[in-house]
């Protein structure tokens, strides 16, 4: 590594480190990963208990269940929490194993797109059931 003393550059020290990620951001990522792991765990316990208590998992039962606010709202939270958590976790895996800068950038870009798109589909489905007014047929 060349140091500032030996390297002739027009760039300021700040300009040289910009875009390489900052301090604090890593701690925030770590903390949010922990926070979403707790919320995801609590919501999945609710989810598992709710499913096991349902008389069945047929179309009508699931639809009627998801129409109630006490099922739809936790389900929406579960989707946000889960997709947020998996995005943070997958990002760490990518950062650890994809070393080439271009592929890493592209992988994280795709991860962000896929996570938001996946969560949007899941949220839409729950909202459609909850606000749609009853199962079809």
């Amino acid at each position, binding site marked *: 590594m060349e140091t500032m003393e030996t390297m002739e550059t027009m760039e300021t020290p700040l300009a040289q480190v910009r875009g390489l990620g900052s301090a604090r951001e890593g701690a925030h990522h770590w903390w949010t990963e922990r926070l979403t792991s707790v919320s995801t765990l609590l919501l999945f316990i609710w989810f598992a208990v709710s499913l096991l208590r349902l008389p069945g998992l047929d*179309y009508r039962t699931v*639809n009627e269940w998801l129409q109630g606010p006490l099922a739809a709202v936790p389900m929406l939270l579960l989707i946000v929490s889960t997709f947020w958590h998996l995005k943070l976790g997958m990002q760490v895996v990518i950062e650890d194993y994809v070393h080439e800068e271009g592929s890493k950038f592209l992988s994280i870009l795709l991860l962000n797109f896929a996570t938001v798109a996946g969560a949007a589909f899941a949220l839409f489905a729950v909202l459609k059931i909850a606000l749609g007014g009853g199962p079809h*047929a």
Partner: protein
Amino acid sequence: MNRNPSRPLSPHLSIWRWGPHMLVSILHRVTGVGLATLGAVALIWWLMAAASGPDSYATFLHWATGWFGILVGIGLSWAFFQHMLSGLRHFVMDIGAGYELSRNKFWANMTLVGSVLLTALLWAWILWGMRG
């Protein structure tokens, strides 16, 4: 070479023995990636099928209750329990506890035993319910 024995050695990165803590560590990643991909797709599919109507839901149920779906379901539930238990172990280690060699090894092993046990319990419950 002369060495002062009271000073610590630098870590010998090439000298190590396989242990349960290593297995649990890599399993946390593997199960996390599995849940994030296959698990997320399964969740989206289930919700979209339920929102799209009885025909879509019937297609989902056909796959989910077939042998392939049950195999994936068993795999995903094991991955969930393994990831959950090693995640809880991470919380303990995050506060700086559980690093003593024997205790660390014990709880690493317990996540492996626990995930298999919880998976067995869950599927015993589900398959027993499907019969009745």
